[in-house]
């Protein structure tokens, strides 16, 4: 039966104060939000708890939710955000959808018009429970104060347990004003909900047999490894059986970049070998990943020669995109350990060498020119990332936005530490990076946090510079400015006869904007200025904008075009 972690003594209070008490019971010490009419009672209650809960006032609700996501991704804890009804709640939706597709634990609390006004088109009324239903793991509307503790406790449990996700709790204004006798029971059980399937030893045995017999085994590491905190278990697993390992965009930093078994990134702009050799392995072992279309390319021509083992916490992912010969359900922290016990110690030097050979070819054809462009060539994104990686010793948390700079940062930053990659993977939300970096820095104050952003995405949430300034958040902003919506332009060049339909940006002076927010800023246009500028950037005390003007029409390669097979990965 459900157990009580904390049992508070009963006290009469308002629903609004109960919301704050619930947050304290859940050990929430940071939240992100934006006040407004229907959430005012909760804000009023928060005023008395300014010491206990650090509320970060963002500049837009989308900023608040992305910050909560960044916080959750950097810490593994539940991110919390607070917004008012109507537009406030609606502005959260993009971030909620992003958190849903990237399995990020977030609890959103929204104010709602008083219950007698529901359905009357009242001022700032919107059906946020209806709107958010397809993009939340769970949501609920509360119309009476006494429902608040149980609902919030359930919300936190659902957000963080099993495959994490966003939860929304909508509270009418009268429920915030209403009185209740407060007591809190931490929820650990919902009878209809099985967060984590129990490992099945039969499945594990079959998986171990396949891996032990494999000549060319290949591991795909997804974010599930990070969400499960299975760093050691994963490393032991691949090291014992000598398994070449590629990571998905969200699996990045699950192993150090320089780990000898790490062969690089999967996906549309992933590595040459990681894509090509998917169709040459004999056993494919997917761990905590979901075979996104950007990873698989044409599913009909994806790893058809291989036996597929899929370690996954969410049963709905099994056979969703790629059929699993052996599904291994459960929390991979546990299943990896059980599986490793049954593995024979192996090495696969010839097979690993295939990846190295592919890497050499990729280095020659792509990487060299990107990281070390010759002489008078325009600055490339890759060389900027190379310097950032070097000057930060691969120790930073890299928060990326969406587009070319994202792919380049993730391809070339050399992650030395666990949990160092925060990006919008599944949804591809431009404007994600700046607010997510704020949340990450607040969640991990001892770490260097670098937001890598393009000129397009920067302007989608540029207002959050105000939050950076007001809340003194030490984020380093690397703006890779190519005066284009670069990724779309690249596609227009390759697939739409260079018809650059509305992708050229006439940009403002970002330096002036940053300085307007009292953030130090610097702009680099020449190669010889770059190294010193990056040095100043990473060592600056406080937030800093480094803008680098990079080649306008540079492309990101390798590339698996849409609808192509992974073995058709192009180097140019």
């Amino acid at each position, binding site marked *: *039966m*459900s*157990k009580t972690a904390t049992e508070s003594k009963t006290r009469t209070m308002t629903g609004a104060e109960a919301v704050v008490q619930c947050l304290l019971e859940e050990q929430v010490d940071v939240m992100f939000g934006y006040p407004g009419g229907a959430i005012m009672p909760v804000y009023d209650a928060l005023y008395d708890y300014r010491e206990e809960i650090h509320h970060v006032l963002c500049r837009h609700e989308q900023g608040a939710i992305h910050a909560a996501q960044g916080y959750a991704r950097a810490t593994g804890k539940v991110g919390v955000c607070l917004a008012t009804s109507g537009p406030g709640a609606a502005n959260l939706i993009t971030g909620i959808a992003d958190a849903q597709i990237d399995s990020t634990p977030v609890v959103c609390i929204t104010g709602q018009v008083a219950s007698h006004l529901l359905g009357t088109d009242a001022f700032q009324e919107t059906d946020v*429970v*209806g709107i958010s*239903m*397809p993009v939340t*793991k*769970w*949501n609920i*509307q509360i119309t009476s104060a006494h429902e608040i503790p149980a609902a919030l406790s359930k919300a936190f449990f*659902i957000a963080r*347990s*099993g495959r994490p996700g966003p939860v929304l709790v909508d509270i009418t204004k009268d429920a915030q004003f209403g009185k209740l006798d407060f007591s809190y029971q931490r929820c*650990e*059980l*919902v*009878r*209809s*909900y*099985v*967060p*984590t*399937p*129990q490992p099945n030893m039969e499945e594990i045995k079959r998986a171990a047999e396949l891996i032990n017999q494999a000549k060319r085994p290949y591991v795909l590491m997804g974010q599930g490894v990070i969400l499960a905190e299975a760093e050691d278990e994963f490393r032991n697993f691949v090291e014992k059986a000598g398994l070449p390992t590629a990571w998905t965009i969200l699996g990045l930093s699950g192993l150090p970049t320089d780990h000898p078994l790490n062969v690089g990134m999967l996906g549309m702009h992933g590595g040459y070998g990681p894509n090509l050799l998917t169709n040459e392995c004999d056993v494919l072992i997917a761990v905590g990943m979901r075979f996104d279309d950007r990873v698989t390319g044409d599913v009909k021509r994806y790893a058809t020669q291989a036996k597929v083992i899929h370690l996954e916490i*969410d*049963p*709905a992912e*099994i*056979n*969703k995109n790629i059929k699993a010969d052996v599904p291994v359900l459960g929390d991979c922290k546990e299943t990896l350990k059980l599986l490793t016990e049954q593995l024979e110690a192996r090495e696969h030097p010839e097979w690993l060498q295939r990846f190295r050979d592919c890497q050499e070819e990729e280095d020659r054809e792509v990487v060299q020119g990107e990281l070390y462009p010759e002489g008078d060539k325009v600055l490339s994104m890759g060389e900027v990332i190379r310097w950032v990686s070097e000057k930060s010793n691969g120790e930073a948390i890299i928060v990326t936005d969406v587009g070319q700079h994202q792919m380049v940062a993730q391809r070339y930053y050399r992650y030395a530490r666990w949990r160092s990659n925060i990006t919008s993977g599944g949804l591809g939300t431009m404007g994600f990076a700046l607010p997510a970096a704020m949340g990450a820095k607040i969640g991990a104050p001892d770490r260097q946090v670098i937001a890598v952003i393009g000129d397009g995405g920067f302007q989608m949430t540029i207002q959050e510079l105000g939050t950076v300034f007001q809340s003194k958040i030490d984020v380093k902003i690397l703006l890779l400015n190519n005066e284009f919506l670069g990724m779309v332009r690249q596609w227009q060049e390759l697939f739409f006869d260079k018809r650059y339909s509305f992708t050229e940006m006439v940009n403002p002076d970002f330096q002036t904007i940053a300085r307007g927010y009292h953030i130090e800023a610097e702009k680099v246009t020449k190669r010889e200025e770059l190294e010193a500028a990056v040095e100043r950037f990473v060592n600056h005390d406080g937030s800093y904008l480094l803008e680098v003007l990079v080649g306008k029409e540079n492309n990101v390669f390798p590339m698996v075009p849409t609808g192509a097979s992974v073995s058709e990965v192009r180097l140019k």
Partner: protein
Amino acid sequence: MQEQFNVSVFTEDQIGMLNRVSIIFNRRHINIESITASASEVEGVHRYTIVVSCTEDQVKKLVGQLDKQVDVVKAFFHRNDQIVQQEIALYKVPTATLVEAKMVETLIRSHGARIICIEPDFTIIEKTGHKEETQQLFQELKPYGLLEFVRSGRVVITKPMKEFREVMEEVEEAARKCVPAG
């Protein structure tokens, strides 16, 4: 290959569940042919019966997504040969034309229908059966100036399924196993 499937969804009895369930069909562009909702044999648990035509692969994924919802206890799908099903139809016909045609008795008897209400100006006939059967009666009543017609969604009892109470106990047991010890 497209086939007809009967999807049964057992959920907690909560506001908004119908929406959460139907969204999963909408999102995959699968039309709901009929839907019924009622209490199940377990208190507090509602049962939705949803008829769809799609491929087996699609229905498996649908059920996977339904099952994944926090407040869904369990979802299943069955083919038509695995279930016993019934629909109910009501027909409103002008009393005068029925009497004039002197066909009423034959019609009612041959269809196993019954008259549930006779008013001077209209008569209401009820028939339960499969869709084809209620449709047949619809066709035959049409010439008599059918005033109104309504057919329910399909209700389904599955032949081979184990008792839902048992399934529910298994789900609860699995949920309990996830509670950390101590």
